[in-house]
């Protein structure tokens, strides 16, 4: 029977994995991810979840177990954060390149050094080019629902899906969450298709061997694509995801009466001149800022990024055509350049007509608190710059505080 419970984001993630009837779970502890797999481990030990739980010795092995189990046909799940994701990066690429439908939670946390366990989105943004689908969630209900959708998307496209949500802000914060019954979940998410079970003694194959750049013939003379054709097919599958992600969300809405918008979500966007853009829970904070600006007569709205990879270029252009200004709030940085979402958005709009000026900001690194008031204040400053005729602007750091007189004391601890 379905029910509404008050749970954390991590419990919502674990609950989704259970409802998905995952067959193999492997994970290594890291804050703030740990309670996802602690919960799953408990359910496996109590018999509540019929799955293999592999207690690996590292994140590298955690994703390896999942990708290998996925190769032989099992539905698999893992979750990590921060340096854990960095450590498994080799396998992040391997999973995507091998086209395995692994679903992984990334509980967004900043990367060391220096040590910091709090939230930003630097970890998942750092692996954005690896060929995974990346979906960002704004609250605990969306976490549960997105994981259920993720298995459908992953298995339909033979692509791994990373479900990203903000560490502590969501992972450890309780909210009311509607939990579907097992029957409801089964109806939406049937068992993994048997066609993906490719290890077969009667049809032995050499899976993932050395592959040259150019096409080659097999022993029967049939021509097969080389590395380049395989990569092209991967890119095409990601392009297809731009249709599959909203379609799965729409089907989910039919069953559960909840929609998350598919590729993006919005708040008071319809007549907005100024658009505030972000991924994850920061978008919810932006809705408060937009409301504050509306109270001052500024036509502000929010465009939330749900699918960051594939990046929904045409969709975003459609949403932004005719607006005056878009202000992107990135919780990550491509060091030596700018915010990842801002950079991608600028590139997406480049050369198109009737597109807004795009200003980028960096905010919330390492868990730095940022309030709706601060976000609104930054939006006012950006609007003022735009009204003064500025079309290009350096990336602004929101709520950066002036502390060291010499500006040189960075992370060494002084007595």
């Amino acid at each position, binding site marked *: 029977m379905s029910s509404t419970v008050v749970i954390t984001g991590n419990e919502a993630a674990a609950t989704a994995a259970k409802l998905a009837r995952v067959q193999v779970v*492997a994970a290594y502890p890291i804050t703030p991810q740990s309670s996802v797999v602690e919960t799953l481990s408990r359910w496996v030990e109590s018999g509540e979840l019929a799955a293999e739980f592999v207690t690996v010795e*590292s994140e590298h092995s955690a994703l390896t177990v999942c990708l*290998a189990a996925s190769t032989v046909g099992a539905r698999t799940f893992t979750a990590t954060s921060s340096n854990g994701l960095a450590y498994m990066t080799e396998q992040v690429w391997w999973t995507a390149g091998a086209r395995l439908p692994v679903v992984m939670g990334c509980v967004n946390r900043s990367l060391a050094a220096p040590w910091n366990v709090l939230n930003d989105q630097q970890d998942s943004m750092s692996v954005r080019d690896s060929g995974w689908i990346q979906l960002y969630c704004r609250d605990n209900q969306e976490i549960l629902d997105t994981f259920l959708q993720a298995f459908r998307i992953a298995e339909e496209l033979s692509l791994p899906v990373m479900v990203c949500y903000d560490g502590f802000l969501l992972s450890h914060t309780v909210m009311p969450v509607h939990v579907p019954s097992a029957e409801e979940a089964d109806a939406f998410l049937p068992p993994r298709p048997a066609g993906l079970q490719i290890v077969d003694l009667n049809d*032995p194959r050499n899976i993932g061997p*050395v*592959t040259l750049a150019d096409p080659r013939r097999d022993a029967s003379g049939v021509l097969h694509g080389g590395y380049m054709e395989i990569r092209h097919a991967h890119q095409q599958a990601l392009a297809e995801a731009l249709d599959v992600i909203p379609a799965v969300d729409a089907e989910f809405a039919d069953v559960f009466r909840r929609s998350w918008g598919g590729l993006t979500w919005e708040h008071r966007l319809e007549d907005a001149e100024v658009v505030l853009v972000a991924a994850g829970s920061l978008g919810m904070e932006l809705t408060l800022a937009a409301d504050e600006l509306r109270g001052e007569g500024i036509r502000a709205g929010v465009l939330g990024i749900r699918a960051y990879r594939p990046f929904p270029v045409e969709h975003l252009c459609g949403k932004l055509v005719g607006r005056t200004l878009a202000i992107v709030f990135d919780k990550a940085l491509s060091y030596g350049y700018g915010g990842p979402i801002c950079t991608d958005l600028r590139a997406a709009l480049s050369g198109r007509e009737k597109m807004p000026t795009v200003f980028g900001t960096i905010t919330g690194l390492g868990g730095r608190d940022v309030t709706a008031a601060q976000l609104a204040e930054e939006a006012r400053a950006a609007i003022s710059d735009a009204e003064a005729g500025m079309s290009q602007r350096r990336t602004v750091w929101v709520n950066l505080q002036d502390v060291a007189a010499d500006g040189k004391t960075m992370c060494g601890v002084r007595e």
Partner: protein
Amino acid sequence: MSTKILDLPTTEYMLPGNRACAGCAIGIGLRSITKALDGKMVLVNPASCLTVLGGMYPVSSMRIPWINVSFPSTAAAAAGVVAGLRAQGRADEMTVLAMAGDGGTGDIGIQALSGAAERNDDFIYMCYDNEAYMNTGTQRSGLTPHGARTTTTSRGKKENPKDLPRIMEAHGIPYIASTSAVYPTDVYDKMVKARGIKGLRYLHMNVPCPNGWGFDPKDTVKLGKLAVETGLVALYEIDGGIFRLTDRSAMLAAGGKPLVPVAEFFATQARFKSLPPQSVADVQTWVDRRWKEYVSRHQAE
């Protein structure tokens, strides 16, 4: 009771023709291994010489399912295959064999292997030891013998190799064996025995490498056997904690004959050329001590 060479099964799982170097001993070992597992197996293999033997997409040199994985991940991947098969009720269909080289096992892969051994995951792990990173052009590994010249030890390696079977023994796994690819029945019998045991089973197989060691490809079997005659390579197994020398090594121990001096083995290969006499003496001392330990641990049937 050991199998006679004429009694080995005749079914072949290796197709005629592969991409391995001339004289590579991996193929000799793999024939025995696949026969011992009746082809009812899935091979998990990281970047290594074995990958080269397997062939390039879309051609395979083997008639068995084969999963290529990344360099450090062999043991974890095998654990994942086991978990995936078990979750689907397919675990009894096939044996999972992880097979990696000395670098992929003793260096970059040792963390995942140690984790799998601690969990006693249910698969066979074989390290085929050609004593350096041969696939990438002969750089030293943690298992390269003292004195051997490689492209990263141009004056000869200064350290003794890691004793991997002993490291695995410290994990308390149910079955450990050391063998050589050029003794097909020893490989076969140990693999058959390993197949019948649950948990993590570790086999270490010496594999002479003409290119990396610097000898004529026609001499692979001769050199592999000479390595055993010197005691540099010992054939043994540790079954449920009971240590036993096997095959030729058991005969050498029983005969009480002196071993062939390592200098004679060294003289056959370019990698040991112009080795200072002191290095040869150091290796001889090391071999003698180790052989004495093997003989004293040996519990003949």
